[in-house]
């Protein structure tokens, strides 16, 4: 049981480049989330999904896109990378049946845009 996995671990992009951050979970969780973590700022929700085929915007969605074609996978797409997108990105998942709504996090992707 790998939990939540994210690839890549690190990436450097040039301004204007595109990339996809991969996220997968093997816990059969309905809910999945993408966060960005900036120093001293806590976690900000980018997008979330309540199930395959259903996604919605979080607090900071501009510059990002997501899709959820399967229960397991929830990739995050950056179309035109900007320096403001330099951050650590975390994917998380949770089960709606959990009374304490525990979110399980992946190890993160550290992205630098130059």
């Amino acid at each position: 049981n790998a939990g939540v996995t994210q690839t890549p671990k690190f990436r450097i992009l040039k301004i204007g480049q595109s990339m996809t951050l991969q996220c997968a979970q093997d816990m059969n969780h309905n809910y999945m989330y993408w966060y960005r973590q900036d120093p001293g700022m806590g976690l900000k929700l980018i997008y979330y999904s309540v199930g395959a085929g259903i996604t919605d915007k979080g607090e900071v969605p501009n510059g990002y896109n997501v899709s959820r074609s399967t229960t397991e996978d929830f990739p995050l797409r950056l179309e035109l990378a900007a320096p403001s997108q330099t951050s650590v990105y975390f994917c998380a998942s949770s089960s709606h049946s959990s009374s304490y709504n525990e979110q399980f996090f992946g190890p993160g992707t550290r992205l630098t845009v130059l």
Partner: protein
Amino acid sequence: QQQVKQSPQSLIVQKGGIPIINCAYENTAFDYFPWYQQFPGKGPALLIAIRPDVSEKKEGRFTISFNKSAKQFSLHIMDSQPGDSATYFCAASKTGSNYQLIWGAGTKLIIKP
């Protein structure tokens, strides 16, 4: 109204001391208050959580105190150890929000040996 304010930003405590981290919220609809622990290079992990129908919850050396009237909750770590050095985040959510968490800014805790 959606904010969760966390303090202090950083904290240094001697081993065996009791670090206390505080959080305050405005939205009275919040009904779930978790604390997450994050070690360097890792994702956050749930440490302990509380609902507003109780004023205190203990799990091992970790205690959440909850004051509904003041709209505040805090994390206490008893007999703190160097291994507790991490960043701690409080958060809050409300029923019907698709389990979205509103996060505090985090507290970097260092326990000195």
